[in-house]
Structures are given as structure tokens and as C-alpha cells.
């Protein structure tokens, strides 16, 4: 029997709160594909947004603390499903490599010496590591009724010289993954546009405007669902639709799923199991398929 692939897991704070369903669906999908997680013990905040606009040293040290823990735990790689966590972790690693003085400082703060070069993966890289063929092999349902707009947001593929992953302006890796579920993908314009990110609390007006533009663009290009790989983006694109509806009376709700939820559906799990019912905009594949068939 094939050895079970063990992958390090850095959940990040969203996975335990607003993006609980992301965590649920991710764990289920990974397990279903025959891999297992080794969660980084005692993980802490990656330093996203607040830290790196306040203090570079703090931002790098916070992120690197988690890398340190992973190293101490004997991991070679770990996945950070949140795009912002992923970005903070790889950016801090990059900073350390590029500037020896940063490395020295971070090491002295953390009272450690980094020995290994731990590979931090984003969600798509995780599935590439597990093996794309596993998805096809374990697929139970072809999601033929879906026209998916794959949304990468700002952080998954940028900055290009740091993430060294896919194309910064015209990425296609998520499409390849989504197409394995039997769903169709649409070619659209807002794949890497900003959703408003952390302005979600203080400047909801900005977030609503930007996120609505993204959703409108997806609709215009024939999508009936959007797929994301970032809890922050999901909050803005899903939850803020309540405001969009209030401000624009003719606004029509548009489902936004985590990539893991879409994969879960293809692997035969149901919406409740995957936590899709926790979303603001409701989504049920069979209902959508039936509706599409009648049109």
C-alpha cells in the first residue's frame, strides 16, 4: 500500500473563525485524496496586514516564528491555505534570503538558527504536490453545470519574483485544477483584481464597490459561480453581497465557493458536509443544475 503523504499545515486565524468552512472542506478533501495533515503546533498569527504596515521586523519575526515551529517539528513543507498567510510566509523567507541582516535580526528575536529551507505552499501548490491525477481518480461527480470564474486575488500569485508561481497577470493554474472536476471555466478580466481586502471593516464602501465590479465581471463573462482561495476575498465577495443587495435593488446574488468546496463536491461530498451552508449566499449544486436544465 502506498504510504500516506503527510503535509505540514498552517491554518492561520481565519480558518478557525470566519473561514471555518474553508478549514473543514480542506481537511476533508485532503483526507479524501489520501493525504494527511501534520498541523504546526502552537502556530500563531502570520503578521498579515497589521504587522507589515507597522513594523517590518515584527512582520518578519511573526511569520518566521511559524516557519521555525515547522522546522522544529521536522516538516519539510507546509501549506498555508490563506493567500495572505502564504504571502507573508514566503515574503519573509524571501527577505531573509535576500538580506542577511534581516535574517540575523529575526534569528536573534526568535532565538533560533534556521537550518532548513521549508517550502511554503499555497492551496494550488498543495494539490499539485498531492497529484492532480488523484482528483480525477477519486472524482464521483462531474460538475458539468458549473461555469466557474477562478479568482486569484492580489496575493496568490504576487509579487511574481517572490511567489515564483504561475503568471502574475494572466494566471491559469486554478483553471487547470477546476477543470478536473468536470466544470467549465470562463476567461474573464478580474482574476487578479483587488477585492478591497482589509478595508472590509473600516471602508466597506470601497470593498463593496471593488467586489461588486469583480462579481459583475464574472457574471458578464457567463460564470454561474466563483471560486476563491483566500478567506479575506471570500468575506468580501460573499458576505458583502448583503450590502450590494441593499444598495443596488436589482442586484442578483452570486455564489462564491472556496476551491476546496468545489473539489469536495466533485469528490462526492455534500454541501452541508463541506460547510457551504455557512456562506451568506446559498449554493446547492443540484438545485443549480436543475435550474440550468430548465432554462
Amino acid at each position, binding site marked *: 500500500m502506498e504510504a500516506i503523504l503527510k503535509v505540514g499545515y498552517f491554518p492561520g486565524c481565519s480558518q478557525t473563525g470566519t473561514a471555518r468552512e474553508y478549514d473543514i472542506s480542506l481537511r476533508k478533501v485532503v483526507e479524501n485524496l489520501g493525504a494527511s495533515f501534520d498541523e504546526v503546533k502552537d502556530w500563531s498569527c502570520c503578521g498579515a496586514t497589521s504587522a507589515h504596515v507597522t513594523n517590518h521586523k515584527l512582520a518578519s519575526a511573526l511569520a518566521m516564528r511559524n516557519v521555525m515551529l515547522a522546522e522544529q517539528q521536522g516538516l519539510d513543507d507546509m501549506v498555508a491555505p490563506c493567500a495572505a498567510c502564504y504571502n507573508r510566509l514566503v515574503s519573509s523567507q524571501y527577505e531573509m534570503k535576500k538580506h542577511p541582516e534581516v535574517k540575523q535580526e529575526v534569528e536573534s528575536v526568535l532565538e533560533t538558527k534556521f537550518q532548513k529551507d521549508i517550502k511554503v505552499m499555497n492551496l494550488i501548490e498543495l494539490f499539485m504536490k498531492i497529484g492532480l491525477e488523484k482528483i480525477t481518480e477519486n472524482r464521483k461527480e462531474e460538475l458539468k453545470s458549473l461555469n466557474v470564474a477562478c479568482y486569484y486575488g492580489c496575493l496568490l500569485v504576487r509579487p511574481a519574483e517572490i511567489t515564483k508561481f504561475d503568471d502574475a*497577470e*494572466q494566471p491559469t493554474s486554478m483553471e487547470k485544477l477546476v477543470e478536473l472536476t468536470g466544470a467549465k471555466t470562463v476567461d474573464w478580466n478580474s482574476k487578479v483584481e483587488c477585492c478591497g481586502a482589509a478595508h472590509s471593516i473600516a471602508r466597506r464602501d470601497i470593498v463593496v464597490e471593488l467586489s461588486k465590479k469583480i462579481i459583475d465581471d464574472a457574471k458578464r463573462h457567463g460564470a454561474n459561480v466563483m471560486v476563491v482561495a483566500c478567506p479575506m476575498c471570500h468575506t468580501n465577495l460573499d458576505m458583502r453581497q448583503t450590502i450590494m443587495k441593499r444598495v443596488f435593488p436589482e442586484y442578483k446574488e452570486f455564489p462564491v465557493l472556496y476551491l476546496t468546496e468545489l473539489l469536495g463536491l466533485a469528490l462526492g461530498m455534500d454541501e452541508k458536509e463541506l460547510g457551504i451552508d455557512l456562506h451568506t449566499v446559498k449554493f446547492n449544486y443540484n438545485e443549480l443544475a436543475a435550474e440550468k436544465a430548465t432554462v
Partner: protein
Amino acid sequence: MKIGVFICHCGENIGRTVDCPRVAKACEWLPGVEVSIDYKYMCSDPGQNMIKKEIIDKKLDAIVVGSCSPHMHEKTFRKAAVAAGINPFLVEITNLREHCSWVHDDIEAATEKAIEMVRMSVEKVKRDQPLTTIEVPVTKRTLVIGGGIAGIQAALDVANAGYEVVLVEKEPSIGGHMSQLSETFPTLDCSQCILTPRMVEVYQHPKIKLMTFSEVEKVDGFIGNFTVTIRNKARHIDEDKCTGCGLCITKCPIRKKAYNSFEENLAHRPAVYVPFPQAVPNIPVIDETVCTHYKNGKCGICVTVCGREAINFDQQDKLVTEEVGAIIMATGYKLYNIDKKPDDSIYKGYGEYGYGKYKDVVDGLQFERIASASGPTEGEFKRPSDGKEPKKIVFIQCVGSRDESKGFSYCSKICCMYTAKHAMLYKHKVHDGEAYVFYMDIRSGGKMYDEFVRRAIEEDGVKYIRGRVSKITEEDGKYIVKGEDTLAGMPITIEADMVVLATAMIAQPDASTLAQTVGIPYDKHGFFNEAHPKLRPIESTTGGVFLAGACQSPKDIPESVAMASAAAAKAMVLFGSDKLEREPVVAKVSADLCAGCFLCKKVCPYGAVEVREVKTRDGVVIKEIAYVNEGLCQGCGTCTASCPSKSVELAGFNNEEIFAQIAAL
């Protein structure tokens, strides 16, 4: 032996980091040194006179000059020595600038190093042998590589002076990029109208041998005596029989399989084609990759219709050898295309502009074809996707230029001018059209150039926006151009019907390979290097090889033409005398010591080592030994390093001299 040491400050270039008076003082005490002095500018007239005076007064036998690179002033100091009666090869240059002061900042350490360096040279000069220069004949013919406007101009100038020219062009026709242009700035005169007469002149000139569809494959020899091997690619059409009637082209059934590169892929061409109707020579080429005959042996319609039996499917490439004395490089440029770059490329390309996926986002040369009366739209402004007249065009400058993160650090120089021209041509034909130009800076230096840009803005109403475009997207046949107006400090969105990207001018993709074939240096971008950026901009560092046009750096037409005429003049300077003097730094084989292993023959990169027989008086061959042809030897010293019996010595750099130098350290 009396030796003089002269230390130059090179203004502050050396003097800033090397304590020159101290170096001179320290060298006074070296054995054999009669006099040691320093001076601010040793290469200047008073400096040279000082050297001459010291040689005569102190009866010096040899001198050491601590100055800049020998590339720069070795000749100057040798001349001064000769004037004072010393053999020029008893002059040693110590490179205190490039090898010492420019690369260090610690004055103390640099000064110590400078003293060491001079001491090495003193030891070498003691052992230097007086040498006499070698005279070589000059072949008074010129090879011009590239048949664009620069190559055409250079060829005509040299030929009109009465010297023979071989003009090699890799495309089926001469004319280059200039033949693709619609009108030219700043006068808006028609490009073809001023170019085609020149092309015909080249074709008809008795002194010019035109070789189109040909590429230089090998260059041997040296200044005045190059042997060049040229591959004349098979056109599959007999050039002597073809009259250029064009019947094969009109009858060819393959119409849509190949893109027309002259039209910048905006149109198709048949399998048998001439690049454009005014091509010189007007002889078609059969494209093997799409022609049906090469697929299955069928078709052959062109054979049937050709009344001259000129079609020859079996024609092979020909290798032609030419003897020339000078080479003019005029290989021109390419435009940075907007397609996605391969993963291993150091250039990123412009994903935000769609990597070429939007049909109506075109580059500068494509727009030239659209604007050209002979282009695919016959000069009417129609966009490639649906043939509709664009009512709003956005021009984006500096795509790839001045952008180290995604393209090239340099300014492509011509884009400010041609973008103004494009916008102007468009406004002249589409009166109700709107033209926007996104720019970083307007660089329009040149006679009547800035006036031209002002005219576009003030008279033709082209709207200039200072800022970059961050994204282009397509929505319902419109292109949404999002950018920033940095003067207003506002983001700006324009719904355009068409977008023109002024992409960077880059070196030809095979420029570096050609440079290696010819043996000239090139920069990191693939542009050929001039010998000196200010004082020798036309010459390469290889004797007898000259540069013309955009192969050296981005250039517009007048600059390319001026440079071509200058290169022609440089070639003619070479032809002004019957013999050339060469440095005697060549290898020499000792007939007594050589055992005839011919290892030197194997390693010589210039093919200068020959086999010679040693015979008795009766004509009996005793042994075979190596012999170095002085004309071909470049003095690289590879043979001396490889010889197991130390029987090859390089004049001016023999073992004794080099070892003395090392021992002095």
C-alpha cells in the same frame, strides 16, 4: 639598461585612489630604473614631451608607463617612444586605472598594489625584445551584413567610391524595417518613396554583389584579409531564369497557411512569395514548411505556370566564399513582441496588456502596416478584429523600454517620435477620431523633432497623458484601458477601440551568435559594442569591423544613415594604403626544438599553424614541424601554453618575460 617609469594621474581617475607621487618615488629605487616621475595627464602633449625629453636626456633604453588600459593609450606612448628613438615594443603599459584605481577604494592598499604592478612591468621590460611591425596586404573589398537602410547606405557609399561590396541580407529582399514604414518623422514623407530608389540602385550597381536570402556562416582572417563563408539559402527558384513575373505567386493554391511577416502577421501569404511587391530582387522564395510539394510531392502548379522553367524544388543551399578587407555590421533590430515569454526567459512580458491575446492591441510595426498605403488595409484605419474604423485609439509608450522589471533598462529612443507620428497619421485620416498617448517623458531631441511632437499635440489635438497603463481588458469589443494620469494625480479609464503598444527595440535574436562568428564584442542586450563610446563609435574593437545603425543601439533613420556613411568612410580609410601594419605579437616555432606533435595546430582557434617539412640539402624529408602563419596568428598564446617542449614562443610575451613578471611579485 636604463629604464624610465612614468606614472599618470589620469586627472583624478587614478590619482583619487592611488597616491601617484608615492608610486613614482618608490619606483625610483627599483633596479634598472634611471628616472621615475608622475604627471597629471601623461597622454597630453606636455606629458608625451616629458617622456621624449627624459628618454633623450637620460639615454633611456626602455620605458614603463603606469596609466589607463593599453587599449586606450598604448599606441600614444609607443609613438612618443619611437619619436625619441626607442623601439615601440620596449614600452610596457601598467594598467593602473582599470586594474587598480577604478576597482579599489582603499588609498593605502591601492597605492601598494600600484607599486607592485609597476615593479612587474619593470622586470618584464628589461627582457623585452625589440620587434618590428609586420606588413600585410589589404583586400579592397567590403562585406556589408544586413540590407536595411544602414546596410544599403554603407554599400552604396563604398561602391560609389569605386570599391567592391558584397551585401548579404538574410531575408529574400533588401529594404529592412524601413520598407515596412508608412510615413517617416518629422517630415511625413513616404518611407517607400525615399527607400525603393536606393534599393534599385544597390541592385543595379556594378560594384555591388547582392546576396539576399543569405547568411554569414564563418569569418576567418583579420583586418584587411577576411575570408567569409556565406550560406546562400535555397529559394527553390533559379535566380538566373526567373523574370519576377509573379505568375507562380498568383496561382499558388496555398493562401492561408503562412502569415506574412512583412505585414507583421496581419495578413497571409502564399507558399511561394516575395515579401512585398517592391522587393529587390523581385525573385520569389518557396517556403518549404507550407508548400504542398514538400509534404506529399503533389501540386506543382507553379512548375506548370512558369514559362521560364525557373522552379527547382531540388535546389540546395550554396556555400560561397568571399575575400574582403573590411566588414560593416548593419543587422538592425527587432521589436520586443508582446507575446508571453517562455518560463526561462529573463524578460517577463506584459500580461496586463494581454500577452497578445487581444487582436486590436498591436505593436508599433503592426500599426505602421495598418497606416501604410501598401498595407493589408491599404492605408485605411481598420482594426484587425472586425475591420471597423477605430474611433478611439490609445497609444502606450515605453512598453519594455525603461522597465527593468519586465523588459529592458534602456530607452528605445524612437518611440516618442513614432508614436506622435502614428497619432498624427490617424488624426489626419479619421477626423472625428480620438488619440490618447500614455507617456513617461517625451524624449524628442533632434532637428525639428520637438516641433513635430508639439504639432501632434497642438494642431492635431492628440491627448497626451503622463502616466502608465496598469491594465487592458476587453469588454464587448471595447478595450478598457486603465491607467494613471500622474499630472492630475487621478486614475483614468479609457474605452478604446484599439491600443498601440510602442514596444522596445531589441537586438536581433541571433545577434550574439553572429557577433561570435565575426569576433566582435556585444553588450548584455545583444547590441554590438563600439570601441569607444565617444571617440570610436563606429568601430568595433576588432580591427576592420565597423558598426552601422540599430545593431549598435536603438536608432532612427537619419542616425542609422549617418552611421552607415561613417562606417563606409572608415572602410575606405583602410583601403587608402596598399599595406597594413600589424603588431608583431605572433607566435614563432623553434625549428630545432619542435618535435612535430602538432598539439598547437589542434588548439589554434585561428587555423594559423601549418605543417612544414624539414629537408636535407638533397631534398630528403627529415621531419615535419609546426609553422605559424604570421598573417593569421592573433597572438592569443594558446599554442605556447600547450606546447610540451616549449618550442613555441609568443613575441613580446615569451616565457622569460612572463616568468620575470611573476617572480617580481
